[in-house]
Protein backbone atom coordinates (compact mmCIF):
# COMPACT_ATOMS: atom_id res chain seq x y z
CA UNK A 1 0.00 0.00 0.00
CA UNK A 2 2.76 2.43 0.88
CA UNK A 3 4.56 2.61 -2.41
CA UNK A 4 7.67 4.73 -1.95
CA UNK A 5 7.40 6.26 -5.41
CA UNK A 6 3.70 7.03 -5.51
CA UNK A 7 2.50 10.35 -4.15
CA UNK A 8 0.22 9.73 -1.20
CA UNK A 9 -3.41 10.77 -1.49
CA UNK A 10 -3.17 12.88 1.64
CA UNK A 11 -0.06 13.64 3.60
CA UNK A 12 0.26 15.57 6.83
CA UNK A 13 3.82 16.63 7.48
CA UNK A 14 5.02 17.76 10.92
CA UNK A 15 1.65 19.04 12.05
CA UNK A 16 1.71 21.07 15.26
CA UNK A 17 -1.49 22.36 16.80
CA UNK A 18 -1.51 24.48 19.94
CA UNK A 19 -4.62 25.93 21.51
CA UNK A 20 -4.58 28.92 23.81
CA UNK A 21 -6.93 28.35 26.70
CA UNK A 22 -8.01 30.76 29.41
CA UNK A 23 -8.18 34.52 29.72
CA UNK A 24 -5.59 37.26 30.06
CA UNK A 25 -4.39 35.93 33.35
CA UNK A 26 -3.22 32.37 33.51
CA UNK A 27 -3.42 31.73 29.82
CA UNK A 28 -2.26 28.24 29.07
CA UNK A 29 -1.27 26.45 25.90
CA UNK A 30 -2.52 22.97 25.11
CA UNK A 31 -0.16 20.98 22.96
CA UNK A 32 -2.90 19.12 21.12
CA UNK A 33 -0.62 17.89 18.34
CA UNK A 34 3.15 17.90 18.56
CA UNK A 35 4.82 17.25 15.21
CA UNK A 36 2.55 14.59 13.79
CA UNK A 37 3.10 13.18 10.31
CA UNK A 38 0.75 10.80 8.57
CA UNK A 39 0.11 9.75 5.01
CA UNK A 40 -2.83 7.93 3.52
CA UNK A 41 -2.99 6.12 0.18
CA UNK A 42 -5.99 5.56 -2.04
CA UNK A 43 -8.15 2.59 -1.02
CA UNK A 44 -6.41 2.44 2.35
CA UNK A 45 -7.90 2.43 5.85
CA UNK A 46 -5.71 3.91 8.55
CA UNK A 47 -6.90 3.69 12.14
CA UNK A 48 -5.87 6.36 14.61
CA UNK A 49 -6.30 5.15 18.19
CA UNK A 50 -5.59 6.54 21.62
CA UNK A 51 -7.26 7.73 24.79
CA UNK A 52 -8.85 11.08 25.51
CA UNK A 53 -6.48 13.99 25.08
CA UNK A 54 -4.18 12.13 22.70
CA UNK A 55 -5.02 14.51 19.86
CA UNK A 56 -6.70 12.03 17.54
CA UNK A 57 -9.76 14.19 16.92
CA UNK A 58 -7.64 17.32 16.45
CA UNK A 59 -5.61 15.40 13.89
CA UNK A 60 -8.82 14.43 12.09
CA UNK A 61 -9.98 18.04 12.00
CA UNK A 62 -6.58 19.18 10.69
CA UNK A 63 -6.67 16.51 7.96
CA UNK A 64 -9.94 17.88 6.59
CA UNK A 65 -8.79 21.50 7.08
CA UNK A 66 -11.46 22.29 9.65
CA UNK A 67 -8.56 23.43 11.83
CA UNK A 68 -5.55 25.33 10.66
CA UNK A 69 -2.39 23.81 12.14
CA UNK A 70 -0.05 26.06 14.12
CA UNK A 71 2.70 24.77 11.88
CA UNK A 72 3.21 21.95 9.42
CA UNK A 73 1.89 21.31 5.93
CA UNK A 74 -0.93 19.24 4.53
CA UNK A 75 -0.58 17.90 1.00
CA UNK A 76 -3.42 16.64 -1.16
CA UNK A 77 -2.04 14.53 -4.01
CA UNK A 78 1.30 16.25 -3.54
CA UNK A 79 -0.04 19.81 -3.64
CA UNK A 80 -0.07 21.95 -0.49
CA UNK A 81 -3.62 22.17 0.84
CA UNK A 82 -3.22 25.85 1.66
CA UNK A 83 -2.77 26.79 -1.97
CA UNK A 84 -5.65 24.55 -3.08
CA UNK A 85 -7.87 26.06 -0.39
CA UNK A 86 -7.02 29.62 -1.41
CA UNK A 87 -7.52 29.09 -5.15
CA UNK A 88 -10.14 26.34 -5.32
CA UNK A 89 -11.51 25.63 -1.83
CA UNK A 90 -14.35 23.55 -3.23
CA UNK A 91 -11.90 21.16 -4.85
CA UNK A 92 -10.35 20.34 -1.48
CA UNK A 93 -13.74 20.02 0.22
CA UNK A 94 -14.97 17.74 -2.55
CA UNK A 95 -12.03 15.41 -2.09
CA UNK A 96 -11.81 15.25 1.68
CA UNK A 97 -14.86 14.66 3.86
CA UNK A 98 -15.56 13.88 7.51
CA UNK A 99 -18.20 11.88 9.42
CA UNK A 100 -18.65 12.64 13.11
CA UNK A 101 -19.70 10.52 16.06
CA UNK A 102 -23.13 11.97 16.64
CA UNK A 103 -25.24 12.22 13.50
CA UNK A 104 -28.02 13.75 15.57
CA UNK A 105 -25.84 16.78 16.22
CA UNK A 106 -24.68 17.13 12.62
CA UNK A 107 -28.14 16.96 11.02
CA UNK A 108 -30.47 19.94 11.27
CA UNK A 109 -33.56 18.69 13.16
CA UNK A 110 -35.88 21.09 11.33
CA UNK A 111 -34.91 20.04 7.83
CA UNK A 112 -35.75 16.82 6.05
CA UNK A 113 -33.04 14.33 5.20
CA UNK A 114 -33.51 15.28 1.55
CA UNK A 115 -32.85 18.95 2.28
CA UNK A 116 -29.75 18.12 4.32
CA UNK A 117 -28.49 15.83 1.59
CA UNK A 118 -29.12 18.45 -1.07
CA UNK A 119 -26.71 20.94 0.55
CA UNK A 120 -23.44 19.34 -0.53
CA UNK A 121 -24.85 18.61 -4.00
CA UNK A 122 -25.91 22.22 -4.43
CA UNK A 123 -22.70 23.68 -3.01
CA UNK A 124 -20.63 21.55 -5.34
CA UNK A 125 -22.94 22.48 -8.25
CA UNK A 126 -23.84 18.91 -9.06
CA UNK A 127 -26.76 19.47 -11.38
CA UNK A 128 -30.16 21.16 -11.34
CA UNK A 129 -32.89 20.49 -8.80
CA UNK A 130 -34.24 17.41 -10.58
CA UNK A 131 -30.78 15.92 -11.16
CA UNK A 132 -29.81 16.55 -7.56
CA UNK A 133 -32.93 14.79 -6.30
CA UNK A 134 -32.02 11.81 -8.46
CA UNK A 135 -28.51 11.81 -7.04
CA UNK A 136 -29.86 12.06 -3.50
CA UNK A 137 -32.08 9.04 -4.19
CA UNK A 138 -29.08 7.12 -5.51
CA UNK A 139 -27.07 8.04 -2.43
CA UNK A 140 -29.82 6.78 -0.14
CA UNK A 141 -29.83 3.42 -1.89
CA UNK A 142 -26.05 3.22 -1.71
CA UNK A 143 -26.06 3.58 2.07
CA UNK A 144 -28.85 1.03 2.48
CA UNK A 145 -31.75 3.44 2.98
CA UNK A 146 -34.78 4.02 0.82
CA UNK A 147 -35.94 6.97 -1.24
CA UNK A 148 -38.86 7.55 1.11
CA UNK A 149 -36.39 8.38 3.88
CA UNK A 150 -35.54 11.62 2.03
CA UNK A 151 -38.79 13.16 3.22
CA UNK A 152 -38.26 12.18 6.85
CA UNK A 153 -36.83 14.30 9.64
CA UNK A 154 -33.76 13.18 11.64
CA UNK A 155 -35.83 12.29 14.73
CA UNK A 156 -37.86 9.83 12.67
CA UNK A 157 -34.79 7.71 11.98
CA UNK A 158 -32.87 5.35 14.23
CA UNK A 159 -29.27 6.10 15.26
CA UNK A 160 -27.92 3.70 12.66
CA UNK A 161 -30.08 5.20 9.93
CA UNK A 162 -28.95 8.72 10.86
CA UNK A 163 -25.32 7.62 10.64
CA UNK A 164 -26.10 6.20 7.18
CA UNK A 165 -27.42 9.63 6.20
CA UNK A 166 -24.22 11.26 7.51
CA UNK A 167 -22.22 8.83 5.36
CA UNK A 168 -24.43 9.56 2.34
CA UNK A 169 -23.80 13.26 2.82
CA UNK A 170 -20.06 12.71 3.02
CA UNK A 171 -20.21 10.61 -0.15
CA UNK A 172 -22.27 13.18 -2.07
CA UNK A 173 -19.40 15.15 -3.63
CA UNK A 174 -17.48 11.97 -4.50
CA UNK A 175 -14.57 12.24 -2.05
CA UNK A 176 -11.35 10.26 -2.22
CA UNK A 177 -10.86 10.35 1.54
CA UNK A 178 -13.30 10.28 4.45
CA UNK A 179 -12.19 10.90 8.02
CA UNK A 180 -14.47 8.90 10.33
CA UNK A 181 -14.22 10.43 13.81
CA UNK A 182 -15.72 7.83 16.18
CA UNK A 183 -18.28 7.26 13.45
CA UNK A 184 -19.74 4.09 14.96
CA UNK A 185 -18.95 4.66 18.64
CA UNK A 186 -22.40 5.77 19.74
CA UNK A 187 -24.22 3.01 17.87
CA UNK A 188 -25.51 -0.27 19.26
CA UNK A 189 -23.16 -3.20 18.75
CA UNK A 190 -25.42 -4.93 16.24
CA UNK A 191 -25.64 -1.74 14.20
CA UNK A 192 -21.87 -1.04 14.35
CA UNK A 193 -21.22 -4.14 12.26
CA UNK A 194 -23.74 -2.94 9.66
CA UNK A 195 -22.00 0.43 9.32
CA UNK A 196 -18.51 -1.13 9.16
CA UNK A 197 -19.69 -3.45 6.38
CA UNK A 198 -21.25 -0.51 4.58
CA UNK A 199 -18.01 1.49 4.76
CA UNK A 200 -16.09 -1.50 3.48
CA UNK A 201 -18.50 -2.02 0.56
CA UNK A 202 -18.23 1.64 -0.42
CA UNK A 203 -14.45 1.39 -0.33
CA UNK A 204 -14.57 -1.62 -2.67
CA UNK A 205 -16.76 0.24 -5.15
CA UNK A 206 -15.11 3.66 -5.11
CA UNK A 207 -11.58 3.18 -3.76
CA UNK A 208 -12.21 5.83 -1.10
CA UNK A 209 -9.61 5.94 1.70
CA UNK A 210 -10.56 6.18 5.37
CA UNK A 211 -8.86 7.66 8.37
CA UNK A 212 -10.72 5.85 11.12
CA UNK A 213 -10.41 7.63 14.45
CA UNK A 214 -11.64 5.49 17.31
CA UNK A 215 -11.15 4.30 20.84
CA UNK A 216 -12.75 0.95 19.99
CA UNK A 217 -9.68 -1.20 19.60
CA UNK A 218 -11.39 -4.43 18.58
CA UNK A 219 -12.98 -2.73 15.66
CA UNK A 220 -9.61 -1.56 14.40
CA UNK A 221 -8.30 -5.10 14.09
CA UNK A 222 -11.03 -6.05 11.67
CA UNK A 223 -11.23 -2.87 9.66
CA UNK A 224 -7.91 -1.10 9.23
CA UNK A 225 -4.80 -2.02 7.26
CA UNK A 226 -2.62 0.30 9.28
CA UNK A 227 -2.75 1.45 12.92
CA UNK A 228 -1.43 4.69 14.33
CA UNK A 229 -1.27 4.85 18.15
CA UNK A 230 -1.24 8.31 19.70
CA UNK A 231 -0.44 9.46 23.23
CA UNK A 232 -0.57 13.06 24.45
CA UNK A 233 -0.33 14.70 21.06
CA UNK A 234 2.31 12.44 19.57
CA UNK A 235 2.42 9.30 17.48
CA UNK A 236 4.04 6.58 19.58
CA UNK A 237 3.77 3.67 17.17
CA UNK A 238 2.67 3.06 13.62
CA UNK A 239 2.62 -0.10 11.54
CA UNK A 240 0.45 -2.55 9.63
CA UNK A 241 -2.42 -4.09 11.56
CA UNK A 242 -0.98 -7.54 11.09
CA UNK A 243 2.44 -6.68 12.53
CA UNK A 244 1.06 -4.48 15.28
CA UNK A 245 -1.48 -6.96 16.63
CA UNK A 246 1.11 -9.74 16.51
CA UNK A 247 3.46 -7.76 18.74
CA UNK A 248 3.43 -4.20 19.92
CA UNK A 249 6.78 -2.48 20.19
CA UNK A 250 5.74 0.48 22.29
CA UNK A 251 4.74 -0.31 25.89
CA UNK A 252 1.79 2.08 25.62
CA UNK A 253 0.34 0.35 22.54
CA UNK A 254 0.74 -2.97 24.32
CA UNK A 255 -0.94 -1.66 27.49
CA UNK A 256 -3.74 -0.02 25.54
CA UNK A 257 -4.69 -3.14 23.60
CA UNK A 258 -4.21 -5.36 26.65
CA UNK A 259 -6.62 -3.19 28.65
CA UNK A 260 -9.47 -3.79 26.19
CA UNK A 261 -11.72 -6.49 27.68
CA UNK A 262 -11.70 -9.79 25.78
CA UNK A 263 -14.77 -11.74 24.79
CA UNK A 264 -14.94 -15.21 26.28
CA UNK A 265 -16.64 -17.86 24.19
CA UNK A 266 -15.74 -20.95 26.13
CA UNK A 267 -12.47 -22.67 26.96
CA UNK A 268 -10.04 -20.99 29.30
CA UNK A 269 -11.51 -17.83 30.74
CA UNK A 270 -9.49 -14.78 29.73
CA UNK A 271 -8.06 -13.19 32.82
CA UNK A 272 -8.19 -9.45 32.98
CA UNK A 273 -4.64 -8.24 32.42
CA UNK A 274 -3.27 -6.24 35.36
CA UNK A 275 -3.91 -2.71 34.10
CA UNK A 276 -1.25 -0.03 33.89
CA UNK A 277 -1.73 2.54 36.63
CA UNK A 278 -2.40 6.22 36.53
CA UNK A 279 -4.38 8.53 34.31
CA UNK A 280 -3.38 10.21 31.08
CA UNK A 281 -1.38 13.29 32.23
CA UNK A 282 -2.70 16.74 31.45
CA UNK A 283 -1.92 17.92 27.92
CA UNK A 284 -1.25 21.37 29.43
CA UNK A 285 1.94 20.07 31.00
CA UNK A 286 3.08 16.86 29.33
CA UNK A 287 5.75 14.94 31.28
CA UNK A 288 9.41 15.55 30.52
CA UNK A 289 11.39 13.05 28.48
CA UNK A 290 9.15 10.33 27.13
CA UNK A 291 5.56 11.43 27.70
CA UNK A 292 4.59 7.92 28.72
CA UNK A 293 7.31 7.48 31.36
CA UNK A 294 4.96 8.30 34.28
CA UNK A 295 2.90 5.19 33.53
CA UNK A 296 5.42 3.00 31.75
CA UNK A 297 6.20 -0.37 33.37
CA UNK A 298 9.72 -0.51 31.87
CA UNK A 299 10.81 3.13 32.06
CA UNK A 300 14.46 3.81 32.85
CA UNK A 301 16.25 6.96 33.95
CA UNK A 302 16.93 8.15 30.41
CA UNK A 303 13.18 7.94 29.65
CA UNK A 304 12.51 10.61 32.27
CA UNK A 305 14.90 13.13 30.77
CA UNK A 306 15.49 12.39 27.09
CA UNK A 307 12.54 12.61 24.74
CA UNK A 308 12.61 9.69 22.31
CA UNK A 309 12.17 10.47 18.63
CA UNK A 310 10.28 8.34 16.14
CA UNK A 311 12.58 5.69 14.71
CA UNK A 312 12.32 2.65 12.50
CA UNK A 313 12.31 -0.67 14.31
CA UNK A 314 11.48 -3.96 12.56
CA UNK A 315 9.78 -2.18 9.67
CA UNK A 316 7.65 0.14 11.73
CA UNK A 317 7.82 3.46 13.42
CA UNK A 318 8.06 3.64 17.18
CA UNK A 319 8.83 6.34 19.73
CA UNK A 320 10.61 4.47 22.52
CA UNK A 321 14.22 4.27 23.63
CA UNK A 322 13.85 0.63 24.59
CA UNK A 323 11.89 -0.83 21.68
CA UNK A 324 13.74 -3.42 19.64
Amino acid sequence: MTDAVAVPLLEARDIVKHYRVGGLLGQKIVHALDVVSLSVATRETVAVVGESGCGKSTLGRCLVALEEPTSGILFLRGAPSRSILSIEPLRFRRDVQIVFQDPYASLNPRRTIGQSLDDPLRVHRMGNRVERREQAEQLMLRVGLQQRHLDRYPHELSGGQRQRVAIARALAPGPSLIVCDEAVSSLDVSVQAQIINLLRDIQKQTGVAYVFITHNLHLVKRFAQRIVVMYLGQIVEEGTTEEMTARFLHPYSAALFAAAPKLWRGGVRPRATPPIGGDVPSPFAPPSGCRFHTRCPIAQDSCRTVEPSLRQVAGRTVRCHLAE
Partner: protein
Amino acid sequence: MSPLLAVKGLTVDYHGMHNAERAVDGVSFSIARGETLALVGESGSGKSTIAHALMRLIPRGAGSVSSGSIAFEGQDLLALPEAAMRAVRGGRIAMVFQDPMMALNPVHRVGRQIAESLLAHGKATPRTAIDRAIELLTLVGVPAPEKRARQYPHNLSGGMRQRVMIAIALAGDPALLIADEPTTALDVTVQAQVLAEIAAIKSRLGMAMLLITHDLAVVSETADRVIVMYAGRMVEEGNVEGVFSRPAHPYTRGLLEATDWEGAASDRMREIPGSVPNQGEMPPGCAFAPRCAIATERCRIERPSVERALHGGGVSCFAAGSPS
Protein backbone atom coordinates in the same frame (compact mmCIF):
# COMPACT_ATOMS: atom_id res chain seq x y z
CA MET B 1 -30.74 -20.34 51.46
CA SER B 2 -32.95 -17.71 49.92
CA PRO B 3 -31.30 -15.43 47.41
CA LEU B 4 -30.26 -11.91 48.32
CA LEU B 5 -32.53 -10.46 45.67
CA ALA B 6 -35.48 -12.16 43.97
CA VAL B 7 -37.32 -10.37 41.19
CA LYS B 8 -40.48 -11.99 39.83
CA GLY B 9 -42.46 -10.94 36.78
CA LEU B 10 -41.27 -7.34 36.91
CA THR B 11 -43.20 -5.18 34.48
CA VAL B 12 -42.61 -1.45 34.14
CA ASP B 13 -44.69 0.93 32.04
CA TYR B 14 -43.80 4.47 31.12
CA HIS B 15 -46.73 6.79 30.55
CA GLY B 16 -46.39 7.98 26.98
CA MET B 17 -48.22 10.90 25.42
CA HIS B 18 -51.00 8.70 24.09
CA ASN B 19 -50.44 5.23 25.46
CA ALA B 20 -48.37 3.34 27.99
CA GLU B 21 -45.00 2.10 26.85
CA ARG B 22 -43.85 -1.19 28.28
CA ALA B 23 -40.15 -0.76 29.09
CA VAL B 24 -39.75 -3.98 31.06
CA ASP B 25 -41.97 -6.95 30.38
CA GLY B 26 -42.25 -9.79 32.89
CA VAL B 27 -38.61 -10.14 33.91
CA SER B 28 -37.65 -12.61 36.66
CA PHE B 29 -34.22 -13.25 38.14
CA SER B 30 -32.39 -13.63 41.40
CA ILE B 31 -28.96 -12.74 42.74
CA ALA B 32 -27.16 -14.75 45.42
CA ARG B 33 -24.94 -13.15 48.04
CA GLY B 34 -21.55 -12.23 46.60
CA GLU B 35 -22.61 -13.03 43.05
CA THR B 36 -22.16 -10.83 39.98
CA LEU B 37 -25.08 -10.85 37.58
CA ALA B 38 -24.75 -8.94 34.32
CA LEU B 39 -27.73 -7.45 32.51
CA VAL B 40 -26.76 -6.91 28.89
CA GLY B 41 -28.65 -5.42 26.02
CA GLU B 42 -28.67 -2.60 23.53
CA SER B 43 -30.49 0.70 23.80
CA GLY B 44 -34.14 0.31 24.72
CA SER B 45 -33.65 -3.16 26.15
CA GLY B 46 -34.94 -2.03 29.55
CA LYS B 47 -31.77 -2.83 31.47
CA SER B 48 -31.45 0.57 33.13
CA THR B 49 -35.18 0.68 33.85
CA ILE B 50 -34.82 -2.55 35.82
CA ALA B 51 -32.13 -0.89 37.95
CA HIS B 52 -34.31 2.15 38.55
CA ALA B 53 -37.27 -0.05 39.44
CA LEU B 54 -35.16 -1.96 42.00
CA MET B 55 -34.19 1.32 43.63
CA ARG B 56 -37.73 2.69 43.25
CA LEU B 57 -36.29 5.62 41.36
CA ILE B 58 -38.79 5.75 38.51
CA PRO B 59 -40.37 9.20 38.74
CA ARG B 60 -44.02 8.94 39.75
CA GLY B 61 -45.32 10.91 36.81
CA ALA B 62 -43.14 9.19 34.23
CA GLY B 63 -43.89 5.56 34.86
CA SER B 64 -44.59 2.83 37.34
CA VAL B 65 -44.14 -0.81 38.16
CA SER B 66 -47.34 -2.38 36.85
CA SER B 67 -46.82 -5.85 38.23
CA GLY B 68 -44.28 -8.17 39.76
CA SER B 69 -42.43 -8.37 43.04
CA ILE B 70 -38.97 -7.46 44.31
CA ALA B 71 -37.78 -9.28 47.42
CA PHE B 72 -34.52 -8.11 48.96
CA GLU B 73 -33.15 -9.58 52.19
CA GLY B 74 -36.64 -10.85 52.97
CA GLN B 75 -38.33 -7.49 52.43
CA ASP B 76 -40.83 -6.70 49.70
CA LEU B 77 -39.29 -3.52 48.29
CA LEU B 78 -42.40 -2.55 46.35
CA ALA B 79 -44.50 -2.55 49.53
CA LEU B 80 -41.96 -0.71 51.68
CA PRO B 81 -42.95 2.76 52.96
CA GLU B 82 -40.87 5.50 51.36
CA ALA B 83 -38.99 6.24 54.60
CA ALA B 84 -37.86 2.63 54.93
CA MET B 85 -36.99 2.53 51.23
CA ARG B 86 -34.78 5.55 51.71
CA ALA B 87 -32.70 3.56 54.20
CA VAL B 88 -32.33 0.69 51.72
CA ARG B 89 -31.46 3.02 48.86
CA GLY B 90 -27.82 3.95 49.18
CA GLY B 91 -27.66 1.69 52.22
CA ARG B 92 -28.06 -2.03 51.63
CA ILE B 93 -28.48 -1.42 47.89
CA ALA B 94 -26.15 1.16 46.41
CA MET B 95 -25.87 2.38 42.87
CA VAL B 96 -23.12 3.69 40.62
CA PHE B 97 -23.99 5.44 37.38
CA GLN B 98 -22.19 5.99 34.09
CA ASP B 99 -21.50 9.68 34.58
CA PRO B 100 -20.10 10.56 38.02
CA MET B 101 -20.08 14.25 37.16
CA MET B 102 -23.88 14.16 37.11
CA ALA B 103 -24.10 12.38 40.44
CA LEU B 104 -21.50 14.34 42.41
CA ASN B 105 -22.21 17.76 43.83
CA PRO B 106 -19.83 20.17 42.06
CA VAL B 107 -19.64 22.68 44.95
CA HIS B 108 -18.76 20.28 47.77
CA ARG B 109 -15.42 18.64 48.49
CA VAL B 110 -15.50 14.94 47.70
CA GLY B 111 -14.51 13.96 51.25
CA ARG B 112 -17.56 15.76 52.59
CA GLN B 113 -19.80 14.03 50.07
CA ILE B 114 -18.60 10.61 51.19
CA ALA B 115 -18.94 11.70 54.85
CA GLU B 116 -22.54 12.81 54.24
CA SER B 117 -23.38 9.37 52.93
CA LEU B 118 -21.76 7.76 56.00
CA LEU B 119 -23.74 10.01 58.33
CA ALA B 120 -27.02 9.50 56.47
CA HIS B 121 -26.73 5.75 56.94
CA GLY B 122 -25.50 5.97 60.53
CA LYS B 123 -22.14 4.44 59.66
CA ALA B 124 -20.08 7.15 61.33
CA THR B 125 -20.34 10.03 63.76
CA PRO B 126 -19.57 13.61 62.74
CA ARG B 127 -16.17 13.18 64.43
CA THR B 128 -15.20 9.98 62.65
CA ALA B 129 -16.87 10.58 59.28
CA ILE B 130 -13.97 12.29 57.52
CA ASP B 131 -11.45 9.67 58.65
CA ARG B 132 -13.78 6.92 57.50
CA ALA B 133 -14.24 8.76 54.17
CA ILE B 134 -10.48 8.77 53.69
CA GLU B 135 -10.40 5.03 54.48
CA LEU B 136 -13.00 4.45 51.79
CA LEU B 137 -11.00 6.47 49.28
CA THR B 138 -8.00 4.27 50.08
CA LEU B 139 -10.14 1.17 49.64
CA VAL B 140 -11.18 2.22 46.12
CA GLY B 141 -7.57 2.88 45.10
CA VAL B 142 -7.42 6.67 45.20
CA PRO B 143 -3.77 7.73 45.66
CA ALA B 144 -3.08 10.48 48.25
CA PRO B 145 -6.59 10.11 49.74
CA GLU B 146 -6.18 12.89 52.34
CA LYS B 147 -5.40 15.38 49.59
CA ARG B 148 -8.13 14.09 47.27
CA ALA B 149 -10.75 14.30 50.03
CA ARG B 150 -10.21 18.06 50.14
CA GLN B 151 -10.65 18.47 46.38
CA TYR B 152 -13.76 19.20 44.33
CA PRO B 153 -15.12 16.87 41.64
CA HIS B 154 -13.79 19.07 38.82
CA ASN B 155 -10.25 18.64 40.18
CA LEU B 156 -10.46 14.92 39.56
CA SER B 157 -10.10 12.84 36.41
CA GLY B 158 -12.98 10.70 35.17
CA GLY B 159 -11.50 7.56 36.67
CA MET B 160 -10.95 9.23 40.06
CA ARG B 161 -14.51 10.59 40.06
CA GLN B 162 -15.88 7.13 39.39
CA ARG B 163 -13.81 5.80 42.29
CA VAL B 164 -15.29 8.52 44.52
CA MET B 165 -18.77 7.41 43.41
CA ILE B 166 -17.91 3.85 44.37
CA ALA B 167 -16.63 5.06 47.75
CA ILE B 168 -19.96 6.86 48.32
CA ALA B 169 -21.80 3.68 47.30
CA LEU B 170 -19.75 1.63 49.76
CA ALA B 171 -20.43 4.09 52.60
CA GLY B 172 -23.75 2.47 53.47
CA ASP B 173 -22.22 -1.01 53.67
CA PRO B 174 -24.27 -2.40 50.77
CA ALA B 175 -25.05 -6.06 50.22
CA LEU B 176 -25.83 -5.28 46.59
CA LEU B 177 -24.14 -2.81 44.28
CA ILE B 178 -26.00 -1.85 41.14
CA ALA B 179 -23.47 -0.60 38.59
CA ASP B 180 -25.10 0.97 35.53
CA GLU B 181 -22.48 1.20 32.74
CA PRO B 182 -19.88 2.14 35.39
CA THR B 183 -16.94 2.29 33.00
CA THR B 184 -18.53 3.18 29.67
CA ALA B 185 -17.43 6.82 29.80
CA LEU B 186 -13.85 5.98 30.82
CA ASP B 187 -10.75 5.48 28.73
CA VAL B 188 -9.89 1.85 28.16
CA THR B 189 -6.85 1.73 30.46
CA VAL B 190 -8.83 3.48 33.20
CA GLN B 191 -11.79 1.16 32.61
CA ALA B 192 -9.46 -1.77 33.28
CA GLN B 193 -8.30 -0.15 36.53
CA VAL B 194 -11.83 0.55 37.78
CA LEU B 195 -13.10 -2.93 36.87
CA ALA B 196 -10.15 -4.50 38.66
CA GLU B 197 -10.82 -2.27 41.67
CA ILE B 198 -14.51 -3.24 41.76
CA ALA B 199 -13.63 -6.95 41.53
CA ALA B 200 -11.15 -6.66 44.42
CA ILE B 201 -13.59 -4.75 46.64
CA LYS B 202 -16.40 -7.20 45.83
CA SER B 203 -14.44 -10.23 46.93
CA ARG B 204 -13.15 -8.42 50.00
CA LEU B 205 -16.56 -7.25 51.18
CA GLY B 206 -18.55 -10.23 49.88
CA MET B 207 -20.87 -7.85 48.08
CA ALA B 208 -23.17 -8.90 45.24
CA MET B 209 -23.32 -6.86 42.06
CA LEU B 210 -25.84 -6.22 39.33
CA LEU B 211 -23.72 -5.04 36.41
CA ILE B 212 -25.58 -3.28 33.64
CA THR B 213 -23.64 -3.01 30.42
CA HIS B 214 -23.83 -3.19 26.65
CA ASP B 215 -20.35 -4.67 26.43
CA LEU B 216 -20.20 -8.46 26.25
CA ALA B 217 -16.43 -8.40 26.66
CA VAL B 218 -16.80 -6.64 30.02
CA VAL B 219 -19.31 -9.33 31.00
CA SER B 220 -16.79 -12.00 29.95
CA GLU B 221 -14.23 -10.69 32.40
CA THR B 222 -16.42 -9.75 35.37
CA ALA B 223 -19.72 -11.63 35.70
CA ASP B 224 -20.79 -15.03 37.04
CA ARG B 225 -24.18 -15.08 35.35
CA VAL B 226 -25.72 -13.07 32.54
CA ILE B 227 -29.18 -12.04 31.40
CA VAL B 228 -29.55 -10.93 27.79
CA MET B 229 -32.36 -8.41 27.33
CA TYR B 230 -34.07 -7.37 24.13
CA ALA B 231 -36.83 -4.75 23.87
CA GLY B 232 -37.77 -5.06 27.54
CA ARG B 233 -37.83 -8.83 27.56
CA MET B 234 -35.43 -11.44 28.81
CA VAL B 235 -34.26 -13.54 25.85
CA GLU B 236 -31.62 -15.68 27.51
CA GLU B 237 -30.01 -16.25 30.89
CA GLY B 238 -27.48 -18.55 32.43
CA ASN B 239 -23.91 -18.69 33.59
CA VAL B 240 -21.55 -16.66 31.43
CA GLU B 241 -19.57 -19.62 30.18
CA GLY B 242 -22.68 -21.53 29.08
CA VAL B 243 -24.42 -18.63 27.42
CA PHE B 244 -21.34 -17.27 25.65
CA SER B 245 -19.99 -20.63 24.47
CA ARG B 246 -23.37 -22.18 23.56
CA PRO B 247 -25.77 -19.29 22.99
CA ALA B 248 -29.28 -20.63 22.40
CA HIS B 249 -31.04 -17.46 21.25
CA PRO B 250 -30.37 -16.07 17.77
CA TYR B 251 -30.10 -12.56 19.23
CA THR B 252 -27.43 -13.63 21.73
CA ARG B 253 -25.57 -15.36 18.88
CA GLY B 254 -25.79 -12.23 16.76
CA LEU B 255 -24.58 -9.99 19.58
CA LEU B 256 -21.65 -12.28 20.30
CA GLU B 257 -20.68 -12.40 16.64
CA ALA B 258 -20.96 -8.63 16.31
CA THR B 259 -18.70 -8.26 19.38
CA ASP B 260 -16.23 -10.94 18.37
CA TRP B 261 -13.63 -9.03 16.43
CA GLU B 262 -11.30 -11.97 15.99
CA GLY B 263 -10.92 -12.89 12.35
CA ALA B 264 -9.36 -11.70 9.14
CA ALA B 265 -9.46 -8.00 8.40
CA SER B 266 -10.87 -8.68 4.95
CA ASP B 267 -13.91 -10.60 6.19
CA ARG B 268 -17.30 -9.01 6.27
CA MET B 269 -18.60 -8.57 9.78
CA ARG B 270 -21.58 -10.67 10.79
CA GLU B 271 -24.39 -8.23 11.32
CA ILE B 272 -27.91 -8.30 12.70
CA PRO B 273 -30.11 -6.59 10.11
CA GLY B 274 -32.52 -3.82 11.09
CA SER B 275 -32.72 -2.12 14.45
CA VAL B 276 -34.43 -2.45 17.82
CA PRO B 277 -38.21 -1.95 17.47
CA ASN B 278 -39.63 1.31 18.75
CA GLN B 279 -42.25 1.23 21.43
CA GLY B 280 -45.62 1.22 19.73
CA GLU B 281 -44.38 -0.92 16.85
CA MET B 282 -43.67 -3.93 19.02
CA PRO B 283 -44.48 -7.09 17.09
CA PRO B 284 -47.21 -9.32 18.56
CA GLY B 285 -45.03 -12.43 18.78
CA CYS B 286 -41.33 -12.63 19.58
CA ALA B 287 -39.87 -9.11 19.75
CA PHE B 288 -36.81 -10.23 17.80
CA ALA B 289 -38.74 -11.97 15.00
CA PRO B 290 -38.51 -9.09 12.47
CA ARG B 291 -34.68 -9.21 12.64
CA CYS B 292 -34.33 -12.96 13.07
CA ALA B 293 -32.95 -15.11 10.25
CA ILE B 294 -34.69 -18.27 11.46
CA ALA B 295 -38.06 -16.83 12.49
CA THR B 296 -41.11 -18.86 11.51
CA GLU B 297 -44.77 -17.91 11.21
CA ARG B 298 -45.30 -19.02 14.81
CA CYS B 299 -42.62 -16.58 16.03
CA ARG B 300 -44.51 -13.70 14.46
CA ILE B 301 -47.80 -14.55 16.14
CA GLU B 302 -47.02 -16.25 19.42
CA ARG B 303 -44.76 -15.01 22.16
CA PRO B 304 -42.22 -17.56 23.42
CA SER B 305 -41.81 -18.06 27.17
CA VAL B 306 -38.51 -18.69 28.94
CA GLU B 307 -37.69 -22.41 28.76
CA ARG B 308 -34.73 -24.40 29.94
CA ALA B 309 -31.79 -24.22 27.51
CA LEU B 310 -29.08 -26.77 26.72
CA HIS B 311 -26.53 -24.77 28.69
CA GLY B 312 -28.62 -25.12 31.82
CA GLY B 313 -29.94 -21.56 31.83
CA GLY B 314 -33.08 -20.24 30.21
CA VAL B 315 -33.97 -19.13 26.71
CA SER B 316 -37.02 -17.54 25.18
CA CYS B 317 -37.10 -18.92 21.63
CA PHE B 318 -39.23 -21.51 19.81
CA ALA B 319 -36.31 -22.53 17.62
CA ALA B 320 -33.81 -23.16 20.43
CA GLY B 321 -33.42 -26.85 21.12
CA SER B 322 -34.65 -27.85 24.57
CA PRO B 323 -32.82 -30.47 26.63
CA SER B 324 -34.43 -33.86 26.32
